[in-house]
């Protein structure tokens, strides 16, 4: 059981690097979507008893993170007919290096922090930290609004991974994580409505610079 779990968590970590290295918008969206689906399955492996609430959370997560949000992002991409380059502020290779460094740091940090005996063997804590850092890198290091939304999705995936540690004690708080998905949904709708595109004639957030001192 724990072997399968760690395999999936490691897969999620690998997808971070894929998202950081991609130069094309669709592949960043795909990486975030795959990661969301992998995470959605995890509660089923953790909760030994098949409680209906666990199934509901899993199905909801896979549906929202794997299909609904990526679908909206792809639609926004078509509607805006923008070029598909990611246009990084921070280059791909430096992003990858920082991402890989964060992964190593996260494993070290996971070893230092006190964990419950049953969590000590799992990769959840390191994967959570590494994913959060990757999300931040995409949020800060890219200029396209859609990639920033993907970065936010990945950041949130990292927090979700951490939340899995608490799932057996307090399953309800994980549902709160679903509410966080709504944030992303609102983000996306903000793009779909796409007034930014119409008003500024671009989705490049560097152009959003009217408001400043």
């Amino acid at each position, binding site marked *: 059981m724990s072997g399968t779990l760690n395999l999936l968590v490691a897969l999620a970590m690998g997808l971070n690097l894929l998202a950081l290295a991609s130069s094309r918008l669709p592949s960043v969206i795909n990486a975030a979507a795959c990661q969301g689906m992998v995470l959605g399955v995890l509660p089923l492996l953790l909760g030994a008893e098949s409680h209906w609430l666990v199934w509901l959370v899993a199905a909801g997560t896979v549906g929202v993170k794997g299909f609904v949000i990526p679908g909206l992002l792809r639609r926004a991409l078509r509607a805006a007919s923008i070029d598909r380059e990611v246009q990084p502020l921070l280059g791909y290779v430096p992003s990858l290096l920082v991402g890989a460094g964060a992964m190593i740091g996260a494993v070290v940090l996971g070893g230092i*922090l*006190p*964990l*419950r005996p049953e969590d000590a063997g799992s990769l959840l804590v390191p994967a959570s930290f590494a994913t*959060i850092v990757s999300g931040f890198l995409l*949020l800060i290091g890219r200029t396209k*609004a859609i990639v*920033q939304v993907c970065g*936010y999705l990945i*950041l*949130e995936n990292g*927090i979700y991974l*951490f*939340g899995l*540690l*608490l799932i057996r*004690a*307090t399953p*309800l*708080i994980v549902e*709160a*994580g679903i*509410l*966080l998905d*709504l*944030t992303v949904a*609102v*983000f996306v709708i*903000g793009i779909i409505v796409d*007034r*930014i595109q119409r*008003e*500024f004639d671009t989705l490049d*957030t560097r152009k*959003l610079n*009217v*408001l400043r*001192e």
Partner: protein
Amino acid sequence: MDLALIFVPLAGAAAAFGWPVNRTRPWLMPVVGAVHAGLALAVLLHPPAAVAGAWLGCDALARAVLPMVSWLFLACACYGVPYLQLRAERDNRVFVGVFLAILGLISLALMAQHLGLLWVAAEAATLATVPLLHYSGTARAFEATWKYLLVGGTGIALSLLGSFCLGYASLHGGGSGDLTFAGLAAQGAGLTRPWVLAAWVLLLTGYGTKMGLAPMHTWKPDAYGEAPGIVGALLAGGMTTMGFVALLRVRQVVDAAGAGAATTHTLLALGLFSMVVAALFLLRTTDYKRMLAYSSIEHMGILSVGAALGGAGVWAALFHVWTNGLTKGALFLSAGNIRRAAGARTQADVAGMMLLTPVSARMFVAGLFAVTALPPFGPFFSELRIVRAGLEAGRGWTVAVFLGALLIAFFGLTRLVFAIVDGRPHAAARATGERYRETASIIAPPLILLAASLWLGLATPAVLREAWTASVNLLLPAP
């Protein structure tokens, strides 16, 4: 009764979404606001009995701030009716619905006794604000909304991670998974220390973003600058109060876990930093709506410093929540009047508003004196108490920086306010000033808020003093 404080506004919001007539819909806001204000008064005068272990309850801390939010909301709602009538061509269904929902969600967050419930309420209130921010529909408003979502969303995510860390601290320390604040505080030193410290840093960043403490303040000038006046007033008085109360509740747990020195130092440092940053930006800004945002950042710094100065400081900070919230309400609403009549909002384009909008301009100047802590307005008395608490705690340097920042902010604020109030109106403004004459319905709400700020300072009601004292006893139990 405490549940009604949440469900009445939410029911009002549902009614607003179903209401068919655009012209009469805004009246739902003052009606619901009046019911809520009455309920808040009842809760203040007759405290409901606390239920041990409940996830929701109107405890001393909720009672100490909730009436302020409720009464500020009522004033904004009354102003909202003529405001939305001026915008009669635009559909106000979403605006009214969301505006009412925010009152319910802030009430929920203030009364939440559970870490997760608090987060859900704060998250929902943050999201609900989005349609209000881009109500004016300009490119600038969408830019501000995008920045609000990006910064606010990240803050919300960090506070969720912090909540998880605090939950894990409890589980690792042998807790049963009880995430109510009372339950966590009772576990005390049993909480695992590294996780508690991580949780404090993340929650301070997360809820500090909600409050608008520097350096997490960047969304604030944009959002307050672009949003309509009533939205700015509700954000500056209600949403920030929610963030502050969240921090006070979390801090109670972290202190109980034996990390009181860390919370005191971080609150003090962030508070002073916010004050200095805001004061410096106040010297430069030329937009009088963005100016109010920087002033709000400064006052959040004051709250944070107050919270770090022991029982007397927390008492003064709760007092300041009231005086600042009501004064800011008056400032935002009168700034809205000036903005409409002037048709512009920078020092270069606006002058002579004393001639075009005589009452609003005078209220704006009076509000300026109030917010810069000149007697006899409320903020003077609350800030005086914070200074006294600082001196009693032996923090001379803190008080020195505090007073220095206030002085610089005073220069910055007076410079800009008198520049737009004095002089001769621009030609373009004369035309718009003709169109948007001052009426009693847009003058009365800010005037009442200003009067309330004055009254709070001169004659603080005993029932409020008792509520603040009870909150201090709740948050900082005598060892």
